[in-house]
Every structure is written in C-alpha cells, then in structure tokens.
C-alpha cells in the first residue's frame, strides 16, 4: 500500500546481472511534488536503479510502485530517426490507446520544437533530440518522471529548458528523480538527494540549502566509508 502522498516507493530492491549484484537492498520513498537528485560515481548503479524503477528491468528481489505512470528520459531517445518529431509523438500516443493531436502540439510547443516538428528526428541536434525525448516521456502525463543524465551534450539554453520542465512538473505535484553528474544546474530545484555507492543507497537526505560542492564532499565521504 502506497502512502497517499508518495510518488515512488521501492522496497528492498535488488537487481543483478548473472551473479553480480548491481543493486542491493534499495528502499526509498519519493514524495509527490518533490525532486530527488541521485548522485553516485560511475558504475554505482544509477542507470540500473532508474531502469528498475521505470519497469524496464525486473528486480530479483523487492518491489517497486509508481503512482500515475512513469515517464523515462534515458540516454537514447527511444524514437525513430526516419520519422518526424510530430510523427514520433503521435505514434507513442497511439500505443497508449489514444489519439491526441492537441496534446502532441502542446508538448512540441512547450519544448520549443514547433518549427522542427515536421523534420525527421535524424536531422535533430542532440539538444533537440533530448527535448523530444522529454516530450515523449510527458505524453501520458505521468505521475513520475525519471531522467538519466539529461544534460549530457546539451548547451546552456537546452539545459535551462530541461530544468524548467522539472520545476514545472514539481509544481504540478508530480515526483521526479534525476540522476546526474552535473549537480549545479539542479541544486536550486532539488528537494532531496540520494547517494548511491556500489549499488547501495548510502544516504538519503534533504538538500538543506547545501550547494553542489558540499554534496560532492558528502558523496566522497560516503564512498570512503563504504
């Protein structure tokens, strides 16, 4: 049973590849209307955790609940280069059982992709592709938005759009989890920080007004302990 104000609940989740445990005993609760920043070194399991939360990977142990559906923005766009931006989004809505041209248009506008909407995805820049991927994730108006290193390869303007989207979703009462190396851009909108060390959730703390440097320091301490 999920507590009424929770967006994501994971209970004792463990995930492995072969016999190697990548995620161990992870339990977390992300409340609705909050933004959680997931930090950890390379290979700490951030991507794996997000995939398990999204339902793309099945945990060997434990369970995951997400209220209101999941939107996932990963490193790859999960869309088709030969189709236009608009066609890609229209296709995804049809898979979810709908036909919503109005919503597609609205999202394209929100992501600043109106002019590029009828060009093929293959011609998009990295920043445009990422914006389209976010639009795709938001099509079903999910209760939970998961983003895996969303700012990689983006310029300042595009990065600002991503952060704006996150702030907006948070205001609308949805839960967001962002895994990122680039902390500075997210510090102002993050509410909590999850520290992932070697597949375990070493700490889960509210931001408490800290800056990126303090967070990195905390991570280094936790890595040294663990």
């Amino acid at each position, binding site marked *: 049973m999920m507590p009424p104000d929770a967006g994501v609940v994971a209970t004792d989740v463990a995930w492995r*590849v072969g016999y*190697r445990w990548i995620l161990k005993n992870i339990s977390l609760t992300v409340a609705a209307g909050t933004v959680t920043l997931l930090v950890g070194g390379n290979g700490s399991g951030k991507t794996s955790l997000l995939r398990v939360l999204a339902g793309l990977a099945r945990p060997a142990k434990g369970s995951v609940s997400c209220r209101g559906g999941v939107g996932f923005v990963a490193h790859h766009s999960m869309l088709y280069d030969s189709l236009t931006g608009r066609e890609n989004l229209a296709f995804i809505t049809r898979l979810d059982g709908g036909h919503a041209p109005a919503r597609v248009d609205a999202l394209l506008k929100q992501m600043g992709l109106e002019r590029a909407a009828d060009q093929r995805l293959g011609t998009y820049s990295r920043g445009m592709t990422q914006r389209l991927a976010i639009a795709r994730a938001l099509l079903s108006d999910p209760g939970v938005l998961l983003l895996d290193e969303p700012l990689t390869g983006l310029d300042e303007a595009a990065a600002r759009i991503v952060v704006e989207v996150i702030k907006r979703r948070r205001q609308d009462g949805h839960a967001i989890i962002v895994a990122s190396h680039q902390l500075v851009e997210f510090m102002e909108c993050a509410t909590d920080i999850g520290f992932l060390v070697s597949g375990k959730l070493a700490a889960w703390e509210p931001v408490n007004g800290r800056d990126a440097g303090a967070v990195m320091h905390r991570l280094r301490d936790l890595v040294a302990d663990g």
Partner: protein
Amino acid sequence: MNRRDGALTTARRGSILTVLALAGFAGVYVRALMFTPIERFQGPAQKILYVHAPIALTTLLAFGVTGLLSLLYLILKDRRLDHLAASSAEVGVVLSIAMLITGPIWGKPIWGTWWTWDARLTSTLFLFLLFVGYLVLRDALTDFGMRARYSAVLGVLALGLVPFIHMTVYWFRTLHPAPVLLKPDAPSMPGVMLVTLLSSLAVVITMYVGFLMQRYALSVLEDVREEEAALELS
C-alpha cells in the same frame, strides 16, 4: 550439501550409469551377433537395427525431454530446468549424429546408396540441425536470463515442430521399412529379435541418462564457478 558437492555426486552416479550401459552394450552386441537369428529379407545387415533403432528412439526422447523441460522452465523459472534442458539437447545432438551414421551404414547394403531422402532419416537430419542451432544460439547469448528464456522458447517451438516434421516426411514418399515397433497393432517381430531390440533400447536409454547426468553436473559446476567469481569481485 552445497551445490558443488551435489553436482560432483551426480557426475559420479552418471558415470557409473554410463559404464554400466557400455557393459550392457557389449552384452547386447554379442547377443545380436551370435544369438539372434538372421532376418529373412535383409540378411545380416539388418542387425544394425539393434543399434540404429534404439538410438533413433532415444534421440527423440532426448529432444522431447528438452522440449518439455523448456516448457516447464517458462512456467517455473527454475534455472536447473534450463541446465537440464540444454544438457539433454547436447546429448541428443550426439545421439542424432550416431543415428545419422548408422542409418546409411544400414542403408547401403539394403538400398544400394549411402543416403536416400528417406522419411525418418530426413526428419532426424532436420531436428539435428535445429538443435545444433539451439546450441549455437545459447553460445551466442551471454546474459544468463536471456539465454535461458530464449533457449526455452526455441525448445517449446521445437517440441511443436516434431509432429509436423514427422507427418510431412511421412506423407512424402518413403523408403524406410514400415514401422515395426511403433505400429498401432502388435509388433510384427518374432520374440527373440524383440528381446534383443528391447534390451538394446534399455541400454541406450541408460547411456543417455548417464551422459545427461554428467553433462548436467558439468553445467552446475560451471555455474558454481561463475557464482564464486562474482562473489570475489564484489
């Protein structure tokens, strides 16, 4: 008893069975050559039947076991079922090679050519190739779970295919001697030949089980080694 010890015990028992089977095989061999009468129409060459037919049946058994265990794996998701299914497939491939060799050896004196597109040899050939494909697929997939699931799917498909292949080649013109044992009515072999055939069958099945146990034990041991390697890394 941990998994490694369990596997070693299974391997030991399997090798005992295999040795027994080989001894039994020698006995059957002697009986077939010395104490079983020569068949009227085919002459001495017919005696290969005592080797060929049991191997053929056991091949079918091996592949059938793989198919059934694959189905069970998809339902129960127990990894041991996957190991057993793959082991049975491997033993089955070896048995089918034996069958495909003894078949022409029997065929040459009787039909005049080494290979004829005879119904049963042809279906065994296709099943052999299919299960070689099964083993190649397993080899090409490194991820555990995927390998087990995909092989199981192929195994179930293969199970569904067997009756269709059988019917297809059966309706196609056949040179194979009419089924002697698996006919709906009583077998038309004289008693003494039947006994030789059935004892040979028992021996080959024992050999299959022995090999199966050893191969399964090997899979488990490989698995244990991988588990220990993973523990060392973490």
